[in-house]
């Protein structure tokens, strides 16, 4: 994409300046947009611009960011909070790390503008506990911002005050779910909350709260600086703006790159991934983190945007980091890996999720060990239909994310699972009277 001008990763490749420092970031025009926004614009105007831009959440669900901000009650006395989701724990995802490690001031400027637009007095940035390096880089950038008077009381002598606090998690995937994250921020176990009330009404510490992903907020500076029309001109309709898209697994050059959405997986693998490793054939891909499910070999032309994955029977675009599998991969094995993950990470509040993920893991293990039969396979498949928010059986989306890989793997690669099944055991006769 030679004519594409990077926004999220602008300047990170430069050797003459270091955009991780305040000085370097200012050299590429950094922090000027925030200064102008708090001087010249009303919060409502910024929200409208973000709505018009079509910016959708980059944390997995793709919810329109500006609309979320608009849900905040107009007449609440406050304080309001902005909470930033840097938990990045979805297996196969490695994009927010890049932003935090390489372009921390862009993240922080987006946070500051979003905080102003949502009238937030405090912004909490929740980083997963294992993010030692991203934390160190972000902490340095936050300290620079305080020293330069960009954060704190009465910024630039005006009315607006903002405090930004980094907050480390401690190893729990469910804390990436927005209300699990809020509980965790409040110093509790990360048990997702029943919604409604939604965080916009009753979020962190019981106050109106907006929660957005790191990458979502990293788009905000560009939108406010250059306008909604400019943002919409990047990528297909409904999938506007710059996006980090990643590749891991069986490609020659795994990595994460910034580009407009809409690229096909085939082109992504060939152009960016350097082709399939060892010239092997493409078998499957999980294009947006473990939750979204598996593609078949002939779905390689799926487009990486908010529309493409659903057309291929997946949960959604997810995090747009794709794990590529070649012909040597046994799908049941990778599915077991994923089932083990969800069973380990289920918080245990909802029966269908707690029990379902546990039985999926155990039953798949039995199938892999050669001790299972078709009844087991059908059972796992049925369990997957019974779990999640979609059938109304759980508090949070973790259960849907656990079910989707099971559904797609068994439906799309059924033969591989059947090959693992022993002939059906003789049915045990039911006791008399049943």
């Amino acid at each position, binding site marked *: 994409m030679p004519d594409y001008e990077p926004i999220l990763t602008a300047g990170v490749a430069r050797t003459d300046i270091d955009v991780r420092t305040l000085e370097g970031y200012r050299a590429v025009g950094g922090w000027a947009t925030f200064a102008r926004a708090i001087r010249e614009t009303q919060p409502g105007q910024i929200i409208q611009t973000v709505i018009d831009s079509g910016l959708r959440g980059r944390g997995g669900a793709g919810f329109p960011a500006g609309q979320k901000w608009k849900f905040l009650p107009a007449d609440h006395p406050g*304080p309001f909070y902005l909470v930033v989701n840097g938990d*990045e*724990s*979805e*297996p*196969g*995802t*490695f994009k*927010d*790390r890049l932003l935090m490690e390489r372009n921390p001031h862009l993240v922080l400027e987006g946070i500051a503008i979003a905080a102003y637009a949502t009238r937030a007095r405090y912004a909490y940035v929740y980083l*997963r*506990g*294992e*993010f*030692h*390096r991203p934390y160190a880089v972000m902490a340095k950038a936050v300290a620079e911002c305080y020293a330069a008077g960009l954060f704190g009381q009465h910024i630039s002598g005006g009315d607006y005050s903002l*405090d930004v*606090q980094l*907050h*480390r*998690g*401690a*190893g*729990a*995937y469910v804390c990436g779910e927005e209300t699990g994250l809020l509980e*965790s*921020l*409040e*110093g*509790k*176990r*990360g048990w997702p909350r029943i919604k409604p009330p939604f965080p916009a009404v009753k979020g962190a*510490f019981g106050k109106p709260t907006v929660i957005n992903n790191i990458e979502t907020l990293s788009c905000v500076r560009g939108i406010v600086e250059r306008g909604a029309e400019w943002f919409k001109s990047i990528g297909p309709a409904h999938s506007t703006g710059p996006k980090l898209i*990643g*590749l*891991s*697994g*069986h490609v020659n050059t*795994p*990595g*994460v790159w910034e580009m407009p959405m809409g690229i096909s997986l085939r082109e992504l693998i060939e152009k960016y991934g350097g082709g399939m490793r060892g010239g092997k054939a493409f078998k499957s891909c*999980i294009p947006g983190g*473990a939750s979204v499910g598996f593609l078949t070999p002939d779905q390689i032309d799926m487009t990486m945007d908010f529309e493409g994955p659903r057309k291929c029977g997946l949960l959604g675009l997810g995090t747009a*980091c794709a*794990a590529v*599998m070649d012909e040597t*991969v046994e799908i049941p*094995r*990778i599915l077991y*890996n*994923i089932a083990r*993950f969800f069973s*380990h*990470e289920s918080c245990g509040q909802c029966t269908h999720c707690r029990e379902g993920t546990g039985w999926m893991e155990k039953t798949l293990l039995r199938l892999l060990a050669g001790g299972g039969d078709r009844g087991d396979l059908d059972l796992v498949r049925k369990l997957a239909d019974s779990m999640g928010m979609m059938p109304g059986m759980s508090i949070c989306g973790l259960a849907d994310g656990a079910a989707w890989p099971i559904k797609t793997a068994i439906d799309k690669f059924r033969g591989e699972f059947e090959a693992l099944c022993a002939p059906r055991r003789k049915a045990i006769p039911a006791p008399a009277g049943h």
Partner: protein
Amino acid sequence: MAWKATDIRGVDVEAQETPALSEQTVSEIRALFDRYPTRQAVLLPALHLAQAQIGYLPPKALLEIAGLLELAPAQVLDVVTFYEMYWRQPKGRKLIQVCRSMSCELCGQVGLLDAIKAKLGIEEGQTTPDGQFTLIAVECLAACDKAPVVLVNETLHEKVAVKDLDEILKPE
């Protein structure tokens, strides 16, 4: 008090005179108080600070944190047991965390973990007798394009091959 703490050796911790938390740790925890609207919100950072000082979270440290944050000890224990990264037992000086999630498995994690086990002579969840190493498998570390990855204490090692293990597993 109803909740009587004994540590793993059966010692009555409330009878122990010396505090578990250093003055520095306590002041670092106190410095966070005005960053949050509630004391409870300081719990996760406080536990991180205590663990960084002591290496793990003995019952005495939990009691002291409960006191500082005006929480019931049970609230502290509730949180400590929920999160993977908090250790209630001592661990080795080097915590070897091998990612076991899907992209790392696609890139050879299973063989790598086996090689580490063989080299250290321990299984997952165990500590070497000299107290140098504790080995655990963890879920995705968000560095899948560098798979397989191993986190040693706070240092992430990327694209780790068996031949790199001599270097990574050097005792301190």
